[in-house]
């Protein structure tokens, strides 16, 4: 056997080994998390929330190709849903699961409300309008003091519980978030593979030709905005429950940009990439905390470096969950 032949033969096996290694490390990390100090669990919780946000935004940006810079608005809708329905603010104390449902529905509705006016827009124009939308939502929250508490925010939110089990410690949120992230990831991935997902891809590639083969682009885009916003809003509700405090400061443009960056650096249109992107953008600042103001510089350099060496992202679109599964379980 020539060297080239043996290399070719070894390649699938070694890439399968890599896939297994990644899988094993992920399982080990998940298993180890509950035994870490609370500080680390909190960092991991926030990582999971960002992954959830990334999964949501990726439906619009990655799958459908619409650059949405106002995603944080849906995150805020979810967070304030929890804050208003489970706090002394309005003296409402609904159960957590009910609020999750309310947040999800409100998210879908706001998603469609944003979607309708921007249907005709693409690219830069869409980015500008959605950016404005995100800011409008934040400014409204900041100014409707009687309802949202304005810049002071809403404090003393209820402790969350699901079917009598209290969700209060960071580790409780870790398990909750893990389940929600896996579910959202599964739904997003299966949507991508569905006929609707193919239509999203077609819209991303050539909107006009997509209409030409009979795709109602209005409905397909609104479906993308609605599912994406639903996931963002659920992330917001869980975020509020874990912080037990919300204020407009958490929903700035910077957050939207951070989520977009996560997707772009990780691998646009690929859930696996989002996990990688979130890991870098959320964990690295924590690791670099000692270097104080230098860490932004480090992050900037890293981003430039990544965009030069891996312009399609750390895990490109072509290596999606399907491929990982195939590598892991044969065929």
């Amino acid at each position, binding site marked *: 056997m020539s060297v080239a032949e043996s290399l070719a033969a070894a390649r699938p096996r070694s890439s399968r080994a890599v896939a297994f290694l990644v899988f094993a490390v992920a399982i080990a990390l998940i298993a180890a998390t509950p035994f870490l100090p609370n500080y680390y669990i909190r960092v991991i919780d926030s990582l999971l929330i960002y992954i959830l946000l990334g999964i949501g935004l990726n439906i619009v940006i990655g799958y459908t190709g619409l650059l949405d810079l106002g995603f944080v608005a849906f995150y805020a809708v979810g967070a304030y849903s929890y804050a208003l329905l489970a706090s002394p603010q309005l003296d409402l104390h609904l159960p957590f699961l009910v609020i999750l449902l309310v947040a999800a529905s409100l998210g879908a509705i706001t998603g469609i409300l944003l979607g309708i006016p921007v249907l005709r827009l693409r690219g830069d124009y869409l980015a500008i309008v959605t950016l404005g939308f995100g800011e409008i939502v934040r400014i409204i929250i900041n100014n409707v003091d009687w309802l949202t508490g304005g810049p002071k925010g809403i404090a003393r939110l209820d402790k969350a519980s699901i079917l009598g089990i209290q969700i209060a410690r960071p580790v409780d949120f870790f398990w909750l978030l893990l389940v929600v992230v896996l579910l959202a990831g599964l739904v997003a991935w299966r949507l991508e593979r569905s*006929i609707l997902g*193919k239509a999203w891809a077609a819209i991303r590639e050539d909107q006009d030709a997509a209409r*030409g083969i009979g795709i109602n682009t209005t409905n397909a885009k609104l479906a993308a905005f609605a599912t994406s916003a639903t996931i963002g809003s659920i992330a917001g509700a869980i975020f509020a429950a874990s912080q037990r405090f919300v204020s407009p400061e958490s929903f700035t443009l910077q957050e939207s940009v951070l989520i977009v960056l996560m997707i772009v650096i990780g691998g646009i249109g690929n859930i696996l990439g989002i996990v990688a992107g979130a890991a870098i953008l959320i964990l690295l600042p924590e690791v670099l905390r000692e270097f104080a103001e230098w860490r932004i510089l480090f992050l900037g350099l890293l981003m430039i470096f990544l965009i030069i060496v891996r312009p399609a992202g750390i895990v490109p679109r072509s290596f999606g969950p399907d491929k990982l599964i195939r590598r892991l379980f044969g065929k």
Partner: protein
Amino acid sequence: MTLVFDRLRKEYGQVVAIDDVTASFAPGLIHGVIGPNGAGKSTLINMTAGSYTVSAGSIALDGKRLDKLKKYQIANSGVARTYQNIRLFDQMTALENLEVCFYPSDVGGTWKEVVWPPYASARRDHRREKCMEILRFFDLQGHADAEAGSLPYGRQRMLEIARALVCNPRLLLLDEPAAGLNHHETADLTAKLAAQRSPDRITIIVEHDMDLVMALCDNIIVMHHGKLLFQGTPAEVQASTDVQLAYLGTANDIDDIRAAAQDRRAQLGIRTRRRS
């Protein structure tokens, strides 16, 4: 029933691109639309497919008005088309380019596809089977998993026609399908287009390649300055003094047309190479 243009008109400000064209196209036949550049051939296709609005008059397919519908509704009424400049979904595979055409019939089952994997794989298998059938017809089965944008130009042309045919359209509109193809590919295309003929389908081809048009079409419409100049069989078109005088004219002129077609092909060829 048929496709009917009734006093169809398209104006761009002062310019009249289509000037009161009335024509009907019977199913089972291949109709050619010829005429010099700027005669309004592509405009006819673009209006029928809903890419351009209609200034006056009407377009009806089997008695149903198309000109009042949105583009996707026209597609869902059984109209499929290809474009003068290829417009595939470049980053999707050849197979996916066809699969997505089942959107109108399958989108209602999206949530079922998401939550119930056996249903999803059954639908997907069903779609893929139909798509592979068409891909095989166009000798593209070996490229099913290749990205459409990475295919050679000739294959892309074929794939675009395959995409138009996958949902078995009632009306097939081809805008210069042979542009940029070499002789061998054009001959192959001619054979494929002849083979896709079915008693229910109206096929309309806008084309500069006179060999292809004369070999393939049952009925030819000659456009001149936005007007319908002549309609007849290939033999009638070639024999018509009207057409000869106005545009096919003398032997010199037919050479001019062939030269123009050659130029156009060269142009498109260069543009494609730059694109890929």
